[in-house]
């Protein structure tokens, strides 16, 4: 039997980066094949070419043994290739049924379409109400729309792009059941991820990419997580250096009954959150995306003003009524999840971006005028200390790669020597080297006496960094306990909303 999909020598060049360098591998019928690699390894680019969104510069694609050209997604679907993207192509203001109709190439009358949708959902155990507006659904439910949409085409190859980054462990299990059922029926699955334990649990074969090149094709059931991780990252894995036997000092950040109001239609507000972080302590806050992390960060940083002075205190001083500038003056710095557009202004130089948050703590403003020389000097220090690959303080933030921009942003805040630092998704989408540097910088800052809060969806990151852990779900925070006290199952349940009492 010919391979369902075969890639030979696929190459794709972008200005400044060779995204795919002569990549070759094959997927058998009914095989669950992992495509493994760090962010920036070239997985997404490769898959976009399989799905017809881009064309390779050179190389050949074979489908069931025949060479093919996939000029656009429609052609891919006609071949029998379905794709579920990491970032959903959904229209929030429209209904489930309308969204699926848009994703279909043929015009199908809505009654017939609805019947077919219900049939697919029944076969694979997915539940959805076709007439609900997408905006009212949870992220896991939204993903189901994408899956149903792909399944309606009776695909012979289903590509899943980082499907579990937004799911609770229970939802991940449900997804795996569906995928195994599909594979048993002969549909091949191309599963893109960087989550090693999932790939070990689910996949038959794994192709590992690094820096655009193919590193290896192996059997994940025979490899260890560490061996696969080493192939993914390349260098020897360094453990984070945390000084042993640390004790924590005085409480620096005390949050007591913090609550915010709903801002938009689809946001999750903060609901009576309380926790304490001591000097030298790193508190990790775990949670699936969309459970109030952004609301929490905004409430702490001051972007969303509170109405209770003592809901947040630093070193005993109630700062709950202060705005962002005041809070910075009192020692609280924050790094939001979104880099370009929120933490930094893409069109501005790095020097101007330093003025954005550091102007008060570093005295960059004199009588209403900005001391641009001082801003440049500070920016130069950040660039040097954090090994930011940029042409200098005058480079625009938008010209930096994701990892370098994040290094700059973290450096800009850390070098202000804040008393309390709150960061959200500090290394999401950042390459391993930069991530390690950022993690080390956070640990060093804590060791110097600051209190740090790390909000993250990456449990591996939290396990490496945190001293204590709490889980946020629907705006509520669980009790924070030392990280060693938690098991992965417990964390997963808390993320999914089961708060201790109703354990399975």
């Amino acid at each position, binding site marked *: 039997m010919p391979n369902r999909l075969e890639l030979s020598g696929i190459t794709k060049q972008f200005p400044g980066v060779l995204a795919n360098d002569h990549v070759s591998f094959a997927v058998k019928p009914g095989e669950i094949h992992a495509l493994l690699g760090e962010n920036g390894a070239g997985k997404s680019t490769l898959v976009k070419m399989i799905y017809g969104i*881009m064309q390779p510069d050179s190389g050949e694609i074979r489908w069931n043994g025949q060479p093919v050209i996939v000029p656009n*997604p429609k052609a891919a679907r006609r071949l029998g290739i379905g794709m579920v993207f990491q970032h959903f*192509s959904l*229209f*929030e*203001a*429209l209904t489930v049924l309308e969204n699926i*109709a*848009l994703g279909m190439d043929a015009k199908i009358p809505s009654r017939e379409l609805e019947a077919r949708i219900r049939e697919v959902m029944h076969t694979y155990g997915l539940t959805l109400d076709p007439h609900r507006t997408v905006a009212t659904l949870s992220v896991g439910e939204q993903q189901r729309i994408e899956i149903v949409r792909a399944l309606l085409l009776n695909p012979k190859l289903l590509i899943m792009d980082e499907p579990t980054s937004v799911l609770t462990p229970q939802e991940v299990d449900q997804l795996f059941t569906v995928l195994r059922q599909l594979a048993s029926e002969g549909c091949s699955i191309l599963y893109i991820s960087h989550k090693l334990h999932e790939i070990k649990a689910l996949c038959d074969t794994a192709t590992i990419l690094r820096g655009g090149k193919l590193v290896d094709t192996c059997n994940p059931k025979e490899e260890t997580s560490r061996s696969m991780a080493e192939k993914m990252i390349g260098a020897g894995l360094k453990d984070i250096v945390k000084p042993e036997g640390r004790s924590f000092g005085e409480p620096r950040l005390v949050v007591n009954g913090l609550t915010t109001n709903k801002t938009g239609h689809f946001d999750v507000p903060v609901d009576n959150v309380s926790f304490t972080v001591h000097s030298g302590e790193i508190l990790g806050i775990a949670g699936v995306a969309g459970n109030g992390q952004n609301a929490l960060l905004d409430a702490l940083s001051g972007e969303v003003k509170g109405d209770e002075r003592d809901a947040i205190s630093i070193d005993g001083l109630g700062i709950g009524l202060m705005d962002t500038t005041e809070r910075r003056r009192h020692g609280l710095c924050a790094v939001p999840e979104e880099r370009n557009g929120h933490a930094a202004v893409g069109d501005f130089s790095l020097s101007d971006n330093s003025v954005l948050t550091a102007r008060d703590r570093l005295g960059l403003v004199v009588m209403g005028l900005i001391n641009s020389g001082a801003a440049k000097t500070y920016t130069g220090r950040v660039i040097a200390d954090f090994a930011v690959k940029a042409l200098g303080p005058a480079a625009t933030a938008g010209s930096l790669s994701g990892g370098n921009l994040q290094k700059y942003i973290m450096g800009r805040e850390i070098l202000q020597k804040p008393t309390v630092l709150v960061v959200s998704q500090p290394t999401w989408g950042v390459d391993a080297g930069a991530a390690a540097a950022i993690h080390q910088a956070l640990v060093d800052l804590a060791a110097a006496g600051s209190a740090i809060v790390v909000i993250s969806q990456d449990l591996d990151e939290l396990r490496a960094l945190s001293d204590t852990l709490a889980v946020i779900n629907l705006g509520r925070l669980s009790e924070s306990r030392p990280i060693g006290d938690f098991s992965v199952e417990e964390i997963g349940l808390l993320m999914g909303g089961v708060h201790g009492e109703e354990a399975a």
Partner: protein
Amino acid sequence: MSLELTIAIIVTVVGASTPILIAALGELVVEKSGVLNLGVEGMMLVGAITGFVIVFATGNHYLAILLAAAAGVATSMIFGFLTLSLSANQTATGLALTIFGTGFSALAGQGYSARPVTLLGPLFPAELATHPLWRVLFGYSALVYFAFAMVLAVWWFLRKTRAGLILRAVGENDQSAHSIGYSVVGVRYAAVAFGGAMAGIAGACFPLLLTPQWAERMTAGRGWIAVALVVFASWKPFRLLAGAYLFGLVMTMELYAKAGGGPLSAIPAELWAAMPYLATVVVLVLISIRRDASTNAPACLGRPFLPSN
């Protein structure tokens, strides 16, 4: 108030509302696709001068309307090319289009001032329209019935057809529509062209339906009112119909307040002239108070489409 006067008011209101309704319907479709075209006033003026010149030269009203629509499309393509193919700022380009349309129409209209043409006659035969109550229904020219028909057509198109669904999708989330494989730019070009055609026809209403002559800037800001109306109607065609008629009423009130005598006739003429514009501000305020109107706006409105691959 006598029946005669009531009938006269209704007829005048319908006439005054028609160009606004037509232009607003066009802009509604454009905005539903995610594009904000502020050049409606300019496109209407181009349509007005085109309609006038054709009627003046040939006496054929329907040809004039057709060519006015074509002129509107051509003008809108300047906007389309700049904003869709060159990703220019939509607000600035729309303003430039208005300035251009104003200047171009004035230039083309040189020498035509105070030269009269004839109005477009009623669509239905005159016998039907003799009885005053029938006049209210059947006494209008084709442009009025066109406007009504288009309200239904636009509603049906957006709600009930696949093409309308795609257009709405493009306006809600252009990145997703692009990922699925729809041509965002293509859909928007089509929408912009439709908006141009409607604006052209709306402009032609001025010399062909209302005042049978040409005067510089004869649309007097109605194009801007049409843009405001789309917001007021929360991008829904039937609400647009109601809103346009409300405005027609406001614009007509001056004439009938004077005729009716009483305290209203003491209001200075200038205040009456300012009334439609002040009413627009009031209407925009009301709609913002009543509900969170911005959530009904197409999510991509005004943002240029930059494919992320």
